[in-house]
């Protein structure tokens, strides 16, 4: 009876190990193993991972094999008489020395790879990545391009509790953003990571590493992407309420496409800068404000302006958002933050801040009738 049970158990474990190793041809949905990725480094990481996995699997098979042989044969029900030996110097020395040799064998390729991964010099392009609660900012240091990247609208709607939207109906559910980081293939790219509020961790599995984004510190890493394509990952360090909802999407494009993209981004930025001198109507401000609010503010203050009691204050009916005396405070909080509230002064344009404040002062029954223009924000900066 036991024999059969144990044999089944051993069979089960062996089958699971086989399953783990049978990886290359596995379907995406039942993904079992690490992906080799798209950089030379990520391929080497994958190879090292497989090497170590094979070594421990073989050790496991040998040790558990001996153990199960003993369990099957050295049992009282089979009339086994216990031996009385209790040590063997040769055995004990050999099972100390052999593991040391195996470990040294593992350490050599690991050291080589680690040294290679730390060679971040001579980069063609440098991008600074800043983690915020809960979005990423990408600054292209030489091109002067910079933008924020947040969870895409469709995923964001579907992921709300009680949304009744089936995640399966959303393309790339929780792994899509409004604006991906775009990089050229076959260039050495240096990626700096830092944090704007708490610690985040920027992780694209296809690049073969993740790196923490720590406030006050800058880490560096590098990648040479060899294949055009879209690669997806997400924040890997617990960073608060919406840690699970700050994906990373990288579009690797040809060099020509990259140059064209940089040009386009620069024009967009110039247009946004010009908008701070414009005058908008109430309707324009409300329409833009609602969009800005749902992208930047609704994560904490919620789409209905009620906040999260005890953690994030309600805006509906709050004195700051409803009284004339509160208006300067309102603008100040948007620009400079307070407690958990991040400073949006450098994240959003004057036009966007003006729009969102107008929206907050007129939505959810706040109905102050206040109109805030970009120039008011510019003056308050």
């Amino acid at each position, binding site marked *: 009876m036991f024999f059969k049970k144990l044999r089944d158990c051993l069979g089960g474990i062996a089958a699971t190990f086989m399953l783990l190793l049978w990886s290359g041809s596995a379907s995406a949905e039942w993904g079992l193993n690490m992906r080799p990725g798209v950089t030379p480094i990520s391929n080497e990481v994958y190879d090292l991972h497989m090497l170590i996995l094979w070594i421990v699997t073989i050790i496991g098979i040998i040790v558990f094999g001996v153990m199960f042989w003993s369990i099957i044969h050295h049992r009282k029900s089979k009339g086994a008489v216990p031996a009385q030996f209790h040590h063997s110097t040769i055995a004990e020395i050999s099972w100390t020395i052999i593991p040391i040799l195996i470990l040294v064998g593992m350490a050599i390729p690991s050291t080589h790879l680690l040294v290679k991964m730390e060679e971040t010099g001579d980069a063609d392009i440098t991008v600074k990545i800043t983690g915020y609660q809960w979005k990423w900012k990408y600054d292209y240091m030489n091109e002067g391009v910079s933008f924020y990247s947040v969870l895409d609208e469709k995923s964001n709607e579907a992921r709300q509790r009680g949304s009744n939207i089936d995640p399966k109906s959303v393309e790339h559910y929780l792994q899509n953003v409004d604006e991906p980081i775009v990089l050229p293939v076959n260039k050495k790219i240096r990626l700096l990571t830092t944090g704007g509020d708490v610690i985040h961790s920027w992780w694209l599995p296809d690049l073969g590493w993740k790196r923490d984004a720590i406030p*006050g510190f800058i880490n560096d890493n590098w990648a040479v992407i060899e294949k055009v394509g879209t690669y997806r990952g997400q924040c890997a360090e617990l960073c608060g309420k919406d840690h699970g909802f700050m994906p990373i999407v990288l579009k690797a494009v040809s060099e020509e496409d990259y140059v064209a993209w940089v040009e386009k981004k620069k024009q967009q930025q110039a247009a946004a800068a010009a908008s701070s001198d414009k005058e908008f109507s109430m309707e324009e401000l409300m329409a833009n404000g609602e969009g800005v609010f749902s992208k930047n503010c609704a994560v904490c203050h919620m789409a209905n302006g009620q906040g999260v009691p005890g953690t994030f204050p309600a805006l509906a009916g709050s004195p700051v958002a409803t009284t004339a005396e509160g208006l300067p405070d309102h603008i100040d909080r948007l620009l400079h933050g307070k407690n958990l509230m991040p400073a949006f002064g450098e994240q959003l344009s004057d036009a966007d801040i003006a729009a969102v404040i107008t929206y907050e002062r007129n939505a959810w029954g706040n109905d102050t009738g206040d109109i805030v223009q970009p120039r008011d924000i510019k003056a308050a900066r």
Partner: protein
Amino acid sequence: MSEAVIHSEHDDHHDHKPTGIGRWLFSTNHKDIGTMYLVFSLIMFFIGGAMAMIIRLELFQPGLQFVDPLFFNSMTTVHALVMIFGAVMPAGVGLANWLIPMMIGAPDMALPRMNNMSFWILPFAFTLLLSTLFMPGGAPNGGWTMYPPLTLQLGTAFPFLIFAVHFLGISSIMGAINIIATVFNMRAPGMTFMKLPLFVWTWIITAFLLIASLPVLAGAVTMLLTDKFFGTSFFDAAGGGDPVMFQHIFWFFGHPEVYILILPAFGIVSQIIPTFARKPLFGYDSMVYATASIAFLSFFVWAHHMFTVGMPLAGELFFMYATMSIAVPTGVKIFNWVATMWKGSMTFETPMLFSIAFVILFSIGGFSGLMLAITPVDFQYHDTYFVVAHFHYVLVTGAVFALFAGVYFWIPKWTGHMYDEKLGQIHFWISVISVNVLFFPQHFLGLAGMPRRIPDYSLQFAEFNMVSSIGGFVFGLSQLLFVYIVIKCIRGGTRASDQVWEGAHGLEWTLPSPPPFHSFTTPPKVTDATAHS
């Protein structure tokens, strides 16, 4: 001293126990305190388990169905704190209380009043911690590792968290001092250190780890407290501090802590395997030295928990090599257990089944641990479900399985009744199958790219999360069977002999089952036959 001896003989003669609630509130008896520790840890095991059930329920399918993200984060955070400080650590101390005096031939622990206090701090500490679940802003949700700046964003719950951790630390340190004082001073004549049962040895080493590491944790959380309320900036870069420094200090405690959780388990298994193999433990001396080396090395490997913070190359290499080296003494222990079984005459009662499962499944956790030690690939594994799978293999199928084994092994001695062997085996088989269904797929999830501590996930992770959740529900529910078996055994059953198990050796098996209120009132004579097997 002589007065104390006479007094305890007097007690023993009438075998009178204090009665009513006072027996438990003011207890200075190692068995009663041990029982309270074990019952407390079982309650905490179910509270922490209920939180795990909520986590697995939310992760059963993609989308948010049951809880909000912030509450989900509270569940992962408090589940860890409750299981580590409330379930596994007190269970280990409970076993130590029950067994160490009986194993070394002493009447009781050396410091009985401190023993009482170290237990009674625990319910207060957990009242502080668990009350935060009902506070505005919710329970701690920044992870049990309490990394700043995130943890500093916590609201009302923050000081409760810090003081709960302080209390837990004080309780553990007092327990550790007591164990060291007992073993160093109260061994029966002839019970030399190298004759001590391995369970006692692993506990001495654990006690030193506790004393060395918990004050470091207390310091770290105190610095968090002053950062939050008194304007210091130990961990705030804007004020000249360093958020990574917290991680260094925390893991300087945290890594020895994982050995605090697992070393007593090593001790339990080292008692059980020789008993049911009917053969002396293989390599007793090397077991002791291996345990001591693991404990020593555990102070030099902390940064492997934080390879991705961006350390200098030399630091990454040092911590990689140091971590890999722990595989050597750990391997020695595994090999010694296998060699103990080799050419034995084995039977497979529930304690042995749990111990064999421990050796295999702990080894699997050790293998994934070795993979995690390799810095360049750890950059991929770090903070994913691969890590979650790893530490649940070493903590659930490692520490918790060994604790189950220990309870089944010694409960006939404690109660005087045999537990229901058939139910015990059913408990074992359901647990061992469901726990693998629960945690093995988490390796795949981590490798495929699923980060830990997320309440919702993208669709490619859906299948294995569902499998894992089903395993989790079965494992969680099957633990109710354990409670039933324990209660049934306390209330009655076949009378247990003094030796209980055919192959049992050691002083605790020379006492009647159940043992007298004060274990040994006259020191027993320790011979090779009554010492460790």
